[in-house]
């Protein structure tokens, strides 16, 4: 809850700063008001970036953290300039709407945050995580947990899994990982933005889940790393394909993205086989329409949208990522994204060329 308050204050502060600083407009166009909605996962990063972007361009960016599912729905209803999503759109979702461009903005980790008295080190493997969230491992002193944590005495208490009650890209990344590592999970639950978890309790948004974990002894849940960090909740090391137990960090998240990236940047980097990779890592995207003239948007608004995305891809903005516990994009993803941005049009004419 403290974190919600912090986010609200940050947004308020950002708006105020932008409002005061609008006379330092450096772009050769009128300052624009952009609006976006979606993932709460990258929200702490976006708060800082949007504020910085406001100082550079004079544009104001309002972003509603309503969950990836909600953001994509708003984009489909054509009421926002961009959607934020931790899950890339499936081919089916893309066929339901006008053609869109995915621009990755940063990488992050979904962490397993827990609340156990006096315990600050915990090792988990993919299959054990799947069994905890499927309700098969019910107590903390289960022998499979004990085998992973020989140096820690886990209490004989029931495990309380905490998950998301709203449609969420964080849920997608987490269940995408579980689907890859556990055949049991793949056949019973699968991957998706909303999954029917059989036990535990749910809360709305990353801040909601972090708040519940913080307040509930013996609970464990999945949240964006920044939320666990801000609430000072410990999170587990997760075993990767190499058998290493890895903590999420800028380096271990970056390591997960060392593989191939397709031209449209739609790819999952969970369960990476790279050395030192944190296995529940993900890109997070901003999604915009390829044709920017919709819902009476002006060309200047379209230009401002692209300016924002270019700014996020710049070294200056990418440098912020590690300060707020995310990781910078690999060079390849930036390169592909700049090419993809060139294809964005207004009335059929490329905006950037």
């Amino acid at each position: 809850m403290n974190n919600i308050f912090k986010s609200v204050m940050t947004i308020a502060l950002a708006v105020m700063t932008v409002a005061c600083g609008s006379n330092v407009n450096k772009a050769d166009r009128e300052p624009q008001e952009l609006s976006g909605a979606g993932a709460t996962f990258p929200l702490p990063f976006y708060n800082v970036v949007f504020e910085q972007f406001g100082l550079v361009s004079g544009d104001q960016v309002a972003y509603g953290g309503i969950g990836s599912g909600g953001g994509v729905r708003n984009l489909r209803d054509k009421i926002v300039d961009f959607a934020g999503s931790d899950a890339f759109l499936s081919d089916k979702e893309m066929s339901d709407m006008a053609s869109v461009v995915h621009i990755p903005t940063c990488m992050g980790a979904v962490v397993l945050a827990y609340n156990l008295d006096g315990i600050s080190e915990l090792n988990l493997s993919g299959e054990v995580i799947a069994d905890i969230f499927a309700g098969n491992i019910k107590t903390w002193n289960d022998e499979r947990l004990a085998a992973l944590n020989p140096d820690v005495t886990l209490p004989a208490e029931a495990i309380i899994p905490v998950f998301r009650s709203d449609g969420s890209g964080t849920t997608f990344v987490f269940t995408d990982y579980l689907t890859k590592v556990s055949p049991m999970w793949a056949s019973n639950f699968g991957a998706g933005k909303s999954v029917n978890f059989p036990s535990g309790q749910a809360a709305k948004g990353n801040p909601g889940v972090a708040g519940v974990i913080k307040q509930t002894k013996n609970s464990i849940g999945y949240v964006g790393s920044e939320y666990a960090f801000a609430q000072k909740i410990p999170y587990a090391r997760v075993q990767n394909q190499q058998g290493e137990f890895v903590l999420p960090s800028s380096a271990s998240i970056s390591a997960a993205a060392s593989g191939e990236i397709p031209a449209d940047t739609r790819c999952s980097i969970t369960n990476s086989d790279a050395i030192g990779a944190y296995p529940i890592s993900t890109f997070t995207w901003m999604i915009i329409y390829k044709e920017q003239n919709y819902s009476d948007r002006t060309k200047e608004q379209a230009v401002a949208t692209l300016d924002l995305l270019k700014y996020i891809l710049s070294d200056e903005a990418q440098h912020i990522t590690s300060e707020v516990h995310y990781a910078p994009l690999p060079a390849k993803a930036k390169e592909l994204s700049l090419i993809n941005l060139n294809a964005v049009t207004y009335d059929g004419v490329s905006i950037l060329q």
Partner: protein
Amino acid sequence: MSDKFYKVLLFVVALVMPLVCGGIVYALVTDAYDAFEHFGFFKFLTSKEWSYTDGAEQYGALPFITGTLMTTLFALIFCIPFSLPVALFVGEYFKGTKIAAILSTVTDLLAGIPSIIYGLWGFYTLRPFIMALNISPQGSGVLTASLVLAIMIVPYAASLSAEFIKMVPNDLKEGAYSLGATRAEVIRKVVFPVAGSGIFSSYILAIGRALGETMTVTMLIGNTNNIPESITSTGNSMASIIANQFGEADDLRLSSLIAIGLILFLITAFINLIGKIMIKRARIA
């Protein structure tokens, strides 16, 4: 001239409300139609599946109807021991005294507290307390939501009941006293029978309030899409599932959520109607 003008103006203004109400019902029915058509009305009411799997979507309202009815029922049960004494205190024992005025004002104040404040209190104070007592491991659930709901509906039940208790004619009570009845006997044998249907209707209206409460319940019920197995289990109410999932829902899921909204609307309207009829009867008697 001006008299006629006011008459027309009042008529138009008075017409707006029924129109708005009719419009809401119309919008709910048209948007919910898809879900009822796809699953069948009774199947939708009785199915406990709420599964999002693409292509095999199954939505049923039973877990949420159960959740709403359970939280409301327990809220009502927990509310009676608090609201009835307040009503007797204000309406009978200390009728017309300063302390009664203070008590009824304070109770009414409870009705003015925003539901998010109740939710926060429940989340940060009541929930850890329930965990500490080992009543339920996760703290949230039907019980926690019901307890907070009970406090929220106390003012509605108490102030209206007190009015009906005050209305019991003095002649009747004095008659009972003259026959040697004690105060407790007067309350049991005279006040309750006479004010009974009024008191009953005040609880009906309190139920109407509890049925639709969203924020507090969403924060405390645990938000799991299953039928609560016991009073300490987590679940979801009709209002809380809508609050949780409306943001990203589309197509069939959106229609199903609106259908749940329609059912909630109908249940609440029905309960309020019963309350209104009972009040009318109580007044006539």
